[in-house]
């Protein structure tokens, strides 16, 4: 099967499978979700209704209990009971006649008849008056609370008042007609069972007085302080319950909520049916048995109103009645949305399938077409046709790759043909070049042989001392540098040897000069050594003196320190003296005080003695002796006063002396301080003198060592001068032998003729003939050389040695000479 058929078929199959599976799954999920939703809604509704109902019933109970506490009820009951007694034995028929048969209002509006008393009636009934008084109030109360009827019953069971005046009005609740009805059961429940503190309830049942309509009753005892005095009973407001149950919002077109009694009969009229369903329609389901508790039960219900319905139920418990609330909705209504969803999914799947087949066909065509074209091209290339045109090289997919690979095969075939042609051309060229090279090699060998011959000849002449030889004929190109270098070397050697012979002349002249200078130097060095010895001796003396003065200065410092210590001790003594004088002053003050006391005592004694004297005088002759005693005492007192005065004067005087003593001591202290300051100043001065002396001693030691050094150096100089003289002699003989050596060479230029003349002169003669001007090409005069002997002069021998060193490399024998030259310069 061709790929162009396979691809679209596979795409269609895949699409059908995927869409089919997803549709089925989504339908399943959707349907269960909708079902759950409906059930949840039913549960919520039924729970809400149950709560509403329970709240309503609880309110009803509270209202009734509150009403039973109302005093008005008790007063009204007592009034009616009292009046009932006046109506005689046949009160029931009398009241029924008055308020039912003769009631101008039709049944259902009888409550509007306030009294049976006719205005023109001569006989006045107290019951009618009481009825007139309370009827309007009680009617309004019942209407405002929604009660369907309201009864006042005495303890004998007589209904002594009812608002709506049905056949039960004025009847006895213990009669056969009523004792098995709801109201009868309520009455018996309260009075018979003596329940006085809560309400009693009777469930819905057919009630004959209102044409066997269902009715439920609730009652409560009326209590006084003595105990129960009557009962109030109401008919439960069925309309209000119906109102709660008839709310069908959120339950669609077939849904509703109904209230069921324990046997399954409806006790609220269904809004979905026109007739009254109370106690006539029955819901027959097993669910009912389970729906008695507060839990919500869900399930399905068949047969009610001829439909199959989803239902949720829960129980309502109220004062003995077991009711259930049920919310239900037709299954066909709940499933309608599911059918719509299924149809939509099927339509969309079909459209997707058609689209997928069309797209896959087009896609497979676009792939198979270029592959067929490529197969044709490859077949042609295999047959050797390289002119093929390739389409689709720019495609990014695998086909593009294939096309590009085929293009590579085609290009390789074209290149192969080209390469074979180029290889043939290269081979012929190489053959020609090899032949040319062999011819050139033979020529080169001939030229080289000629150059070697000539060079050998030149070198042989050079070894004979002939420096005039030159190689004039050029060699072959690669060896011509050898010839030029040989010529240059010979030239350089020639020039060097010429310089050497010239310099030897200069050396001969300078050697004489050198000898005279060395003599001069020797003499002056001796003088210097003598002077240095004298200096050294003088310095030793000075050093001794300075050391001595330094020692004296140190001693003086010690003395001054002692003096300072003494002054400090004196200052302390002075301070102690001052404080001692202060103590003397204090003691004087104390003595003065004591003396004042003595003075005071003397004064008082004097006064006493005077008084005694006066008394004695007044006593006349008898007091004579006493007067004498008094006189003695007075004299004693006066003497002690005088003595005290003297002591006081003395003390004052000694105080003054002490004060002046303190002043003097203080001045002494100040003077001592001043002395201490001066001593310190002297100490500083002596210290600086000692320091200066030490510094001088140090300086002198340095000078001494410097002089010693100078002495040593002078000794060395003297030795060196002798050495220099010896070296000068050796230099002269060296120059002569150098001349002999140079004369062995045959040089180009004019020098060779003069060289033998110089060498002929003997070395000692050269020393004495140093001042000869002809032998001194450099230097202005001999006098200047001797006066400036200590100055280093650039030696011509040194120049020559440098030149030789440059030409042949440094000679070891020259080192000593060069070293001595250096020492010369340093000095």
């Amino acid at each position, binding site marked *: 099967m061709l790929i162009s058929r396979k691809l679209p078929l596979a795409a269609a199959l895949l699409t059908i499978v995927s869409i089919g599976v997803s549709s089925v799954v989504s339908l399943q999920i959707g349907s269960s979700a909708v079902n759950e939703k409906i059930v949840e809604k039913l549960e919520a509704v039924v729970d809400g209704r149950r709560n509403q109902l329970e709240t309503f019933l609880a309110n009803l109970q509270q209202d009734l209990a509150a009403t039973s506490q109302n005093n008005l009820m008790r007063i009204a009951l007592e009034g009616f009971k009292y009046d009932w007694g006046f109506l005689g034995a046949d009160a029931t028929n009398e009241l029924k006649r008055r308020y039912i048969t003769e009631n101008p209002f039709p049944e259902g509006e009888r409550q509007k008849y306030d009294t049976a008393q006719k205005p023109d009636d001569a006989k006045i009934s107290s019951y009618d008056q009481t009825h007139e008084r309370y009827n309007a109030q009680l009617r309004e109360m019942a209407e405002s609370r929604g009660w369907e009827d309201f009864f006042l019953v005495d303890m004998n069971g007589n209904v002594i008042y009812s608002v709506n005046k049905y056949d039960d009005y004025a009847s006895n609740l213990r009669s056969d007609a009523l004792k098995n009805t709801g109201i009868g059961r309520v009455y018996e429940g309260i009075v018979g069972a003596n329940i006085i503190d809560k309400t009693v309830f009777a469930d819905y049942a057919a009630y004959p007085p209102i044409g066997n309509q269902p009715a439920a009753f609730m009652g409560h005892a009326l209590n006084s302080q003595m105990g129960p005095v009557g009962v109030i009973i109401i008919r439960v407001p069925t309309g209000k319950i119906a109102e709660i149950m008839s709310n069908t919002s959120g339950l669609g077109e077939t849904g509703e909520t109904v209230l069921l009694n324990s046997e399954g009969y409806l006790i609220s009229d269904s809004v979905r049916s026109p007739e009254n369903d109370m106690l006539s329609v029955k819901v027959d389901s097993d669910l009912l048995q389970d729906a008695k508790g507060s839990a919500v039960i869900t399930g399905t219900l068949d047969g009610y109103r001829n439909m199959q319905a989803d239902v949720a139920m829960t129980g309502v418990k109220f004062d003995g009645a077991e009711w259930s609330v049920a919310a239900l909705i037709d299954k066909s209504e709940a499933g309608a949305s599911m059918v719509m969803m299924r149809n939509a999914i099927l339509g969309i799947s079909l459209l997707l399938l058609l689209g997928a087949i069309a797209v896959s066909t087009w896609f497979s065509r676009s792939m198979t077409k270029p592959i067929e074209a490529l197969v044709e091209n490859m077949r042609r290339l295999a047959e050797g046709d390289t002119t093929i045109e390739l389409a689709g090289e720019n495609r990014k997919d695998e086909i593009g790759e294939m096309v590009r690979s085929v293009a590579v095969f085609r290009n390789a075939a074209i290149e192969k043909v080209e390469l074979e042609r180029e290889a043939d051309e290269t081979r012929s060229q190489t053959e020609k070049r090899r032949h040319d090279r062999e011819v050139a090699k033979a020529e080169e060998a001939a030229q080289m042989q000629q150059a070697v011959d000539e060079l050998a000849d030149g070198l042989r002449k050079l070894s004979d001392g002939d420096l005039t030889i030159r190689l004039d004929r050029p060699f072959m190109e690669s060896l011509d540098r050898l010839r030029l270098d040989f010529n240059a070397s010979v030239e350089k050697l020639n020039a060097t040897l010429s310089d050497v012979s010239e310099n030897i002349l200069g050396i001969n002249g300078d050697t004489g000069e050198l000898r005279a200078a060395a003599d001069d130097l020797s003499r002056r060095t001796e003088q210097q050594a003598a002077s240095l010895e004298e200096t050294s001796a003088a310095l030793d003396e000075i050093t001794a003196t300075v050391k001595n003065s330094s020692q004296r200065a140190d001693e003086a410092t010690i003395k001054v320190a002692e003096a300072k210590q003494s002054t400090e001790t004196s200052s302390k003594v002075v301070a102690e003296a001052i404080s001692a004088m202060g103590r003397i002053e204090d003691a004087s003050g104390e003595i003065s005080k004591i003396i004042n006391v003595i003075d*005071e005592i003397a*004064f*008082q004694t*004097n*006064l006493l003695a*005077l*008084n005694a*004297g*006066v008394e004695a*005088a*007044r006593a006349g002759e008898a007091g004579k002796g006493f007067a004498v005693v*008094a*006189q003695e005492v*007075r004299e004693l007192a006066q003497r002690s006063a005088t003595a005290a005065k003297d002591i006081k004067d003395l003390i004052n005087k000694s105080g003054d002396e002490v004060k002046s003593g303190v002043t003097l001591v203080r001045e002494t202290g100040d003077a001592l301080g001043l002395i201490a300051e001066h001593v310190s100043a002297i100490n500083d001065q002596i210290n600086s003198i000692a320091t200066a002396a030490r510094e001088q001693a140090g300086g002198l030691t340095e000078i001494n060592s410097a002089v010693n050094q100078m002495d040593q150096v002078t000794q060395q100089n003297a030795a060196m001068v002798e050495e220099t003289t010896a070296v000068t002699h050796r230099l002269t003989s060296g120059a002569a032998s150098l001349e002999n050596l140079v004369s062995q060479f045959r040089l180009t230029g004019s020098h060779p003729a003069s060289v033998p003349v110089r060498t002929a002169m003997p070395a000692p003669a050269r020393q004495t003939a140093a001042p000869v001007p002809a032998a001194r090409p450099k230097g202005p005069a001999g006098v200047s050389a001797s006066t400036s002997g200590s100055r280093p002069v650039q030696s011509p021998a040194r120049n020559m040695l440098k030149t030789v060193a440059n030409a042949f490399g440094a000679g070891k024998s020259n080192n000593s000479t060069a070293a001595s030259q250096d020492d010369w310069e340093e000095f």
Partner: protein
Amino acid sequence: MQESANNNVANNGYLEIISFHLGKQVFCVNIMSVREIRGWAPSTTLPHSPPHVLGVINLRGSVIPVIDMAIRLGLPAIKPTERSAIIVTNIAGKLVGLLVENVSDMITVNNADLQPAPDVLPAAERALTKAIIPVDEQMICYLDLDALFSTDEDMAA
């Protein structure tokens, strides 16, 4: 009064006096008119009193006036010190304190030594001085206390 004094002097033969200083001068009174000699103590000033009346002091329960003798005798006022003394005298049955600078001595003199005061003062002033007694180098002015007191009253009147 002078006469009676003189008579008195003449009769007794000897006279006992107490001498005291006021400034440089020495005065004396008859010892029989002296009740007591006390050290100086501050006195309580009386309102509207003459300059020589210093005030009153408490002498063991009885209130007695104190007179500055210097002012009374026309001398510069005494500045009282601890050594000053008050001589309590009995003048005509009344106790009077005399502030003096210094009680110097108790002397027994011969009546013959009493010399009358010279006649150079007005009668009222001269009446204060009963006699002049020369003792050793000193001249002691013997004061008549009765005259002093009566003149005082006269002056006050």
